[in-house]
């Protein structure tokens, strides 16, 4: 009974494409919903995303005391007295650690205000440890935002070029539309869960792009190979066959990836949580979109010309090869 790989059926014959019309519609709806969540309210710079100081500018301070509970109300008043508006104060741990986040008042130096606020906090609360301070000026946050956008767009463009070069334009378009789908849904996840969107999040999305395209290459590669092998098989059957053939790889690789990320989400601490969750989501969505977005698009985009062929897929057909 061991190795487990023997448990996986030697040959599956799930009809993936049959479900495609329903799932493609769902995907399209999910993409539109993500777009909506991401863009509404239309407010620069981040719209529906909960941007961290990286992209929005401002100050984030994390402090902890030696086991004393922090009076959040007092802290808020203190910050208001210092003249900073739009303050978020949040306790975590056992209430002895606090995160303070605020925007830099117009026309003032961000670092100077952060110093003033820290001095005021020390004055009020006595001895505290500043575990983390992040101050990002408006110019830098704008640049980071642009760089983030450029990184994502050039990431997708690069993948398009590579797949185009390796597989031709139809495959390339299919893969890139699927990729855009993955990126959009990941943005949707960030907007929906209100997870903080930071530079690290952009890094995780770029990695998702890398992983997702990897997965698409495996499936597309098999489709291309089968296109040569079974010259008469209708496209939908050929896609089903290819996905079935790569299924055990998809499962094993997906499971190892998810396992590693799951561990990181649980044990990696708060700093890695959002990153791991986004990546795990990306693996699931990326795997799904290889099968249900990238492949069906091939049908729509013209490789489906072979649709007219009469041959039916069958066991013999699949195995009778040299």
């Amino acid at each position: 009974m061991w190795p487990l790989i023997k448990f996986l059926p030697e040959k599956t014959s799930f009809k993936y494409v049959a479900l495609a019309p329903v799932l493609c519609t769902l995907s399209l709806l999910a993409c539109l919903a993500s777009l909506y969540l991401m863009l509404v309210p239309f407010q620069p710079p981040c719209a529906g995303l909960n941007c961290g100081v990286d992209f929005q500018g401002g100050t984030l301070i994390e402090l902890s005391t030696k086991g004393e509970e922090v009076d959040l109300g007092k802290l808020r008043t203190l910050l208001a007295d210092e003249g900073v508006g739009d303050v978020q104060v949040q306790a975590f741990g056992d209430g002895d650690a606090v995160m303070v986040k605020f925007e830099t008042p117009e026309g003032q130096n961000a670092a100077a205000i952060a110093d003033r606020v820290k001095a005021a906090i020390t004055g009020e609360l006595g001895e505290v440890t500043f575990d983390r301070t992040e101050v990002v000026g408006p110019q830098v946050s704008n640049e980071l935002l642009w760089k983030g956008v450029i990184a994502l767009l050039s990431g997708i463009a690069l993948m398009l070029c590579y797949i185009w070069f390796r597989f031709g334009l139809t495959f390339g378009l299919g893969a890139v539309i699927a990729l855009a789908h993955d990126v959009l849904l990941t943005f949707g996840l960030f907007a929906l869960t209100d997870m903080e969107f930071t530079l690290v999040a952009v890094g995780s999305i770029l990695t998702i792009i890398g992983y997702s395209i990897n997965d698409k290459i495996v499936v597309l590669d098999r489709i291309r190979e089968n296109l040569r092998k079974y010259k008469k098989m209708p496209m939908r059957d050929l896609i089903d066959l290819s996905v079935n053939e790569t299924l055990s790889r998809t499962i094993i690789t997906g499971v190892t990836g998810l396992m590693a990320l799951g561990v990181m989400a649980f044990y990696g601490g708060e700093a890695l949580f959002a990153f791991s969750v986004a990546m795990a989501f990306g693996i699931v969505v990326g795997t799904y979109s290889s099968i249900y977005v990238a492949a069906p698009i091939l049908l729509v985009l013209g490789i489906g010309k072979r649709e007219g062929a009469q041959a039916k897929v069958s066991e013999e057909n699949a195995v009778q090869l040299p």
Partner: protein
Amino acid sequence: MLNVAPWRIWLVIIVTIVGLVVASPNFVPQSYRANIPVLKDLKPVNLGLDLQGGAYLLYQVDVKALEKQQLEAAVDDMARVLREAKPRISYTGRGVADGAARLRLVNPADSPRALKLLSDEIATDVQAGGFGRTEKSISFTQTPEGLIEGRFSKTMLEQSTRRAVDQSREVIMRRIDPGGVSETSVQRQGIDRIVVQAPGEQDPETLKRRIGQTARLTFHLVDHNVQPQDAAAGRVPPGTVLMPQDDAREPFVAVKERAILSGDDLNSSNPSFDQQTNEPVVSFKFDGRGARIFGQITLANTGKRFAVVLDGKVITAPNINEPILGGSGQISGNFTPESAKELSDLLNAGALPAPLAIVEQRSVGPGLGQDAIEAGQVSTMIAGVLVLVFMILAYGLLFGGISVIALVVNGILILAAMSLTGAALTLPGVAGLILTLAVALDANVLIYERMRDEAKAGRAPAIAIDAGFSRAIVTILDANVTHLGAALIMMSLAPPGPVKGFAWTLTIGVFTSVFTAVLVTQLLVAWWFRAARPKKLPIQ
């Protein structure tokens, strides 16, 4: 493929051994390594600021202030050239506005001659771009309002900004790390920015105070013609300015705008104590030229006052009781022993050529970093064990075991490459490491699945193994090229910090993964096959 060329075998063995040696500082304690010659100089992986704790400061050079300084100097030059012209060209108002140095000629008919003279005397050729093309550093024109104005060329401004940033960088290094021993790094970023990364720095406030102060020390003569009531009302003649002072009896001092000497003319300074009052002072010594000028001026102005100005604020404005000819003196002005030492350190390190402003600051306390390291270690360990167990469960002791060995070699090589390049391991980098290992397994999975396909199609084990490798490699390379693309984009756009560390880890991981998944796996499978000569693959 089952006949592995000898060079490949040696390559795998040598790379693995070298990798193990280079990575060893990460798991062999220093005390054991100290006695082994090769090992004792190797360093473990460099931890990023988010793991180690420390401060990251991004400064921007105030380019506008720099340009203004230069324009002011240019106006002085222009005025001098016109005064020294024969016959003399007279001018009236002079000043700096809208990014130009301007003055007005008394007689507009002089303007062609003035323009030519200024251009000949002041403008220099600066290299613009490549190919030996040059342009004038400053161009002089006549405005429609009849003013003569000089504007710096773009290249000139860019070059002077670069120079100022380089100088600032050196000054900062001298200020924070006079001995050159700490791990603090000071680097230029882009054209006008400087990144300071101080790992382990517990007190970013002190660091900021030491870096951020321009510390421009100047000596001015006090303008005795200004009456106190005029000074209070802000009425001063041209060429004289009011400078603030920390003294309630005289909150402003009217001084001549032109500095007679500056911090650049100092040779050295030290904190010390005044011999009579015993209060903390900063004593200083001018260099040869400075001493001569100071001597002449104090001789000519005995009985009057001069002001010592630091960054536009008067520290002290004493009487010149007698000419100071020795070139040394002391500054007193409400110092504590600490602040006297701070100022003299700053003076010794030199002034910043232009003001700096912090545009980004990130600091992580040591406690948080320690927590992050522990979280990273725990999750790496658990994830590693889980993945290993899963692979052995999935593919059996033999093939699962082979992929586990490949994975362990991969992990060692990544650690070795990171230790060797000095790339910082950041918290997202830890995640990148785990993810890379998980994805590296994909290569093994692709190879094994191919073998199974081929075996299923009725091929003999040897041919199935062969075909499995040769066909899977194409897919593996495709996958890794795309990963590399994503990582390189991140690397080129991310600022130094966690995300860049992540990109580094991914990039290194791509290369080691291809190496181990393809070469190491192949070698192990080939060895096993030659020893066992199986009739059937164990994963079939």
